[in-house]
């Protein structure tokens, strides 16, 4: 873990040398009281854990939207998740740099062989930010609230692998055991998202165990987090964390304005930087920008394979054909998408998972091919033919379809135009349609009135189990053909089987084998045409010390309690 070294030793050395010079200067005892005062200061710094002189200050950055809730169990948007990360105390934490699971409020934990039960041994003597003592009862209370079916929380649903209620057993104030009705894959790592609430505090969710607490909130404008004086963590020298006095989060949806404010020094970091701004900043101040490499996120498009979709039958025939989908994929120049749209800060996507997901990525997958001639030949073998520069199917219908994407996302709009140009070269006419997000979702999930959609997937989990609701054919998020009563194709049935297999096994190797096969099927059948994996780009002001941007969210402030700012 990378953290800022405490300057206390250098302060001690400086004071000692000062005292030495004082002794020389006042050899005839002209100012013995001065030496005594200085000695008292040294004594205080050494024996009473406090904060070194260089710490304190306020970190300043922006949230893209307003946080919708301060209740950590109901978090579903990025802004609320950021607040939860900074204020919430969790039992265990996935170290964003090493990706290892580390103890936090829990000193140790044990998962049963059947994957249904987890037992925690907790730290003692801790308090919430308002002074309310922390105990295993608070953990039990939090888990029961989280697993309340009426809550419908994304965090809670991640634990829900079967019907039935969760049992919590408080063994002692520092020991608790939690039993789930069915196996929960990756059970321990899921607690990284569960911020513990106080059962007894009158402040309810505003009483926190994390390094910061909400001090002031101006809706639509800004949120001020102040250091939690009761935070349990200290550094190796015994100084209480966090080093920062406060964090100010401004609500700023516009990326141009955020960038402007960063350049002016009004904002200290940008968590997710656009590639064009990365290059502009790198040209003048390379020390400010960080490219942590390929992230877990992907951009992909898919064709509508819903049987009842209100699109012409001949188009449904095209979209249902794996050959057609593969040909379209082969006609798209992903290298250009990375280079032109992301300025080289992206890689062509192999499949559902990015190579950044070292354990789960299937290293046997072939890189995506770009070959317009081969794509055309493949289509011609299906009965398509070129007529005066326009591709037509065997019934004589010109191949025209629309790609819809959400407006306001410049990168996606540009990718859609590049794809339009690529497909024009093989005689396919594409209409690019940008829609406001609710209209797009309505077409995707309710009316199914679309032909192709270009969107992205933000992966916060390394574990494929987090994408269960994407790959299961019966799920709402099985985007290309959701909520199937029974799998409509053999390959979807096979994916269902493999996903359930990996979800029911506690053997990492077996799970990996199953998910590797899922990835191979997805690449072969191309229900999603995975386009690119973006790099994790960020910007950090030189004012901030201790930052070490990584690919996992939150890239820049994952170690907020260790950050310092120079004044």
């Amino acid at each position, binding site marked *: 873990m990378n953290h800022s070294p405490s300057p206390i030793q250098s302060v001690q050395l400086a004071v000692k040398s000062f005292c030495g010079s004082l002794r020389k200067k006042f050899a005839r005892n002209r100012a013995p009281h001065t030496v005594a005062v200085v000695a008292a200061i040294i004594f205080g710094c050494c024996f009473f854990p406090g904060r070194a002189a260089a710490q304190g200050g306020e970190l300043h950055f922006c949230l893209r939207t307003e946080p919708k809730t301060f209740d950590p169990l109901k978090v579903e948007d990025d802004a609320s998740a950021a607040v939860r990360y900074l204020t919430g105390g969790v039992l265990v934490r996935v170290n964003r740099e090493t990706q290892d699971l580390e103890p936090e409020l829990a000193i140790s934990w044990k998962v049963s062989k059947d994957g249904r039960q987890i037992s925690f041994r907790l730290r003692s003597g801790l308090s919430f930010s308002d002074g309310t003592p922390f105990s295993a009862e608070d953990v039990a209370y939090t888990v029961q609230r989280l697993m309340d079916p009426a809550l419908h929380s994304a965090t809670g649903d991640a634990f829900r692998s079967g019907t039935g209620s969760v049992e919590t057993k408080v063994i002692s104030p520092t020991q608790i055991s939690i039993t789930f009705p069915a196996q929960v894959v990756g059970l321990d790592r899921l607690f990284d998202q569960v911020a513990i609430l106080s059962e007894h505090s009158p402040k309810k969710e505003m009483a926190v165990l994390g390094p910061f607490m909400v001090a002031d909130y101006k809706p639509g404008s800004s949120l001020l987090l102040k250091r939690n004086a009761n935070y349990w963590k200290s550094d190796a020298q015994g100084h209480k964390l966090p080093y920062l006095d406060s964090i100010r989060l401004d609500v700023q949806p516009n990326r141009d304005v955020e960038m402007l404010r960063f350049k002016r020094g009004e904002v200290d970091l940008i968590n997710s930087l656009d590639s064009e701004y990365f290059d502009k900043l790198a040209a003048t101040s390379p020390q400010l920008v960080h490219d942590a490499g390929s992230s877990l996120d992907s951009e992909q498009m898919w064709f509508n394979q819903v049987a009842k979709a209100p699109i012409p039958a001949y188009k449904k025939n095209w979209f249902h054909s794996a050959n057609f989908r593969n040909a379209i994929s082969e006609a798209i120049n992903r290298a250009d998408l990375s280079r032109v749209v992301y300025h080289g800060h992206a890689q062509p996507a192999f499949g559902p998972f990015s190579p950044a997901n070292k354990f789960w990525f299937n290293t046997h997958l072939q890189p995506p091919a770009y070959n317009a001639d081969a794509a055309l030949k493949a289509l011609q073998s299906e009965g398509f033919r070129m007529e005066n520069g326009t591709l037509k199917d065997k019934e004589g219908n010109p191949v025209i379809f629309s790609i819809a994407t959400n407006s306001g996302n*410049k990168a996606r709009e540009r990718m859609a135009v590049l794809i339009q140009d690529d497909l024009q070269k093989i005689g396919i006419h594409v209409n690019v349609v940008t829609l406001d997000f609710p209209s797009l979702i309505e077409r995707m999930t309710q009316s199914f009135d679309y032909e192709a959609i270009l969107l992205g997937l933000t992966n916060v989990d390394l574990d494929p189990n987090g994408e269960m609701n994407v790959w299961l054919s019966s799920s709402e998020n099985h985007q290309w053909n959701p909520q199937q009563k029974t799998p409509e194709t053999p390959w979807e049935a096979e994916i269902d089987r493999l996903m359930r297999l990996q979800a029911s096994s506690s053997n990492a190797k077996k799970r990996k084998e199953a998910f590797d096969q899922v990835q191979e099927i997805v690449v072969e059948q191309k229900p999603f045409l995975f386009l690119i994996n973006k790099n994790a780009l960020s910007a950090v002001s030189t004012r901030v010390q201790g930052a070490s941007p990584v690919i996992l969210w939150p890239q820049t402030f994952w170690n907020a309690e260790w950050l310092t700012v120079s004044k």
Partner: protein
Amino acid sequence: MSLAQKTACLILALVLGASAAATWLAPGGYAKQDREAIAEPPSHTHWLGTDELGRDRFTRVMYGTRISLLLAPAAALLSTLLAAAIGGLAGYAGGTWARLAMAVTDLFLSLPWLFLLITVRALLPLNVSPLVSVLVTFMLLGFLGWTAAARVLCSSAASLRSSDFVRQARAAGIPAQRLFWVHTVPNLKPVLLAQFWISIPVFILSEANLGILGLGVAEPMPSWGSLLKELQGLVSIGEEPWKFVPLILLVIVVTSFQLLLSRQEEFAL
């Protein structure tokens, strides 16, 4: 014609001529992407540089002129005529009719038309041709853009109704219809011309904003509005002043229109 008006005529003719000749002046077309020349500054091959997808900006300005210069004035004319009909008639009629018309106008001013536009987009097929999409967009703008002028016209017409010459004309037995069209409307020309002149750039810019809803000009077709959206990249705009050219061109065209219209304003007086 004054020198200024002759210059305005010449400028408009040049601009329209260049846009009409775009097919010969830029045979590559507005959609041609040079992926090795992304966001390039001006050069001898790309006079205004290239955009973020390597498309020649000068070509796109010329082709964009066709859409914006043809359709925006047409939509402006539609909104002006509607304002004249509703505001002018209401003010001239006075009494309850004027109150009702102005209440409807105020309602129009307050409603969130964004949702009507979203609904219109939903009713259009996804594969609607770019021309149909842009025609529908400008027509909608014309139908929705009359409200501000209608209010001012109502007030102007009400003032005229009680003016001496109208009273004299009425006393002389001139029919109401003739009184309105021959004696009132010409005196409303200053406001009508102001409305027309203001509407042109407003509709050009609004068309670009409607791209958020899926209306307006679809890619890869350019329009002045979509070109002007590049100005929103403020952080770098100081280093890329050539991006101001569409704005400068729009200002020149709008000012030229105004210089020509000012002749009409003088005649209207």
